[in-house]
């Protein structure tokens, strides 16, 4: 029951309310983030993936600061519940994103869950993962009539330009 106007209006609030409370929200996001760092591509509900996306990118920013930084190590050991992923974060993910400056993750929507809740689902992945791409590049078929005609036209133009020069 929202008693005060402050509790009713949520202008400018950046964090979604998830789970049982703020502690539960952070724990849930921690678990999802650990799974993301382990598998590099996970499928969850859209809201959770959107929340985790911010934390995943910030975690990579901290990892870029390096092993020796105390704050970075504290953050990594808090956010990754499985401690064998901490070296993976610093030694694999941080060098991979050395040249990127901002976006390290990709979010793609999926058909809704088939359960009764029909929840919006999404796939969150780190760029540069070993799996086949989410948006596969469609190769155009060269043997269709229009493509063959266009190919011939391009070749003629190239010949004309060669004879002119």
């Amino acid at each position, binding site marked *: 029951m929202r008693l005060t106007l402050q509790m009713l209006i949520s202008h400018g609030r950046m*964090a979604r309310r998830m789970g049982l409370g*703020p*502690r539960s929200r952070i724990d849930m996001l921690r678990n999802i983030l650990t799974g993301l760092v382990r598998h590099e591509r996970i499928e969850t509900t859209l809201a959770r993936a959107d929340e985790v996306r*911010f*934390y995943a990118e910030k975690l990579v920013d901290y990892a870029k600061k390096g092993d020796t930084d105390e704050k970075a190590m504290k953050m990594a050991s*808090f956010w990754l519940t499985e401690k064998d992923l901490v070296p993976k974060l610093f030694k694999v993910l941080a060098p991979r994103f050395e040249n990127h400056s901002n976006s390290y993750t990709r979010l793609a929507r999926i058909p809704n869950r088939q359960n009764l809740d029909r929840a919006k689902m999404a796939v969150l992945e780190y760029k540069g993962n070993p799996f086949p791409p989410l948006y596969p590049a469609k190769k155009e078929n060269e043997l269709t009539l229009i493509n063959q005609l266009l190919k011939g036209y391009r070749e003629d133009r190239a010949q004309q330009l060669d004879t002119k020069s």
Partner: protein
Amino acid sequence: MAACTKRLDRFIISLRLLRNLQLQNERFLSTSQCLRAAGNDSESPKFVPPSKPVIVDKTQTVASLRKFLSPEFIPPRQRTDPLKFSIERKDMIRRRKVLNIPEFYVGSILAVTMADPNASGKTNSFVGICIQRGGKGLGATFVLRNIINNQGVEICYELYSPRIQKIEVLKLEKRLDDNLMYLRDALPEYSTVDPEMKPVPFSPTGEVPVNKIKVRMRPKPWSKRWERPKFNIQGIRFDLSLTPEQMEHAQKWAQPWLEYDMLKEYDTSKLEEQIIKEVQQEMSK
């Protein structure tokens, strides 16, 4: 013995003669001068002390001066256009060129004179310890607290109000906390400031002195539950007013995940550098 006294007497008499001669000459000269001077002015000439020499310390270079950016210059994390903040900063600098707003922190003792149409002499002044600095931009405020005639008085002044005529820092120091609202529940001796305090000299280089005083509180109930971790107060002596069980009970409201929550972080270092440069440029014009 007699011989000594005789010689002494002669010596003293000769000295006296010499002194009399001297004095007579001096009196001759001095009185004539005095009379002449007295003839010109009606009163005796006042002693004018020589002007104090202005010491320009060339060892303190610009680089060694303490860099301070007033907290109201730093814009909050919002979705507003940065143009609004830059226009506001221009106005703040314009006001600062007219009125010198010195560097001060929460815990320093300030004296403020403000224009007041109802007061005799049209100004009123207040001396107090700064307990809070709030607001951003032109609406920045600071609250001064003092105890006058056994009555605690807190006045909230706006830094950029045109009514303010002078802000003077009597003692520059920092405290262990950013917000000293708990002084309301502390013993009155910690909030009393002498209204006729003389300014304590401080150097513009080096670190600001931190007063690590731990304040004693009145018996509970307090206006706020200062022992709770959300206030994060370092400057109270809790061991005198609370039992260890009560301190542990207060820790139930602790949110240990808050320091790891990256969403709450607002890194202002780059913004601060930019704004410091801008402000220094504009002020030197």
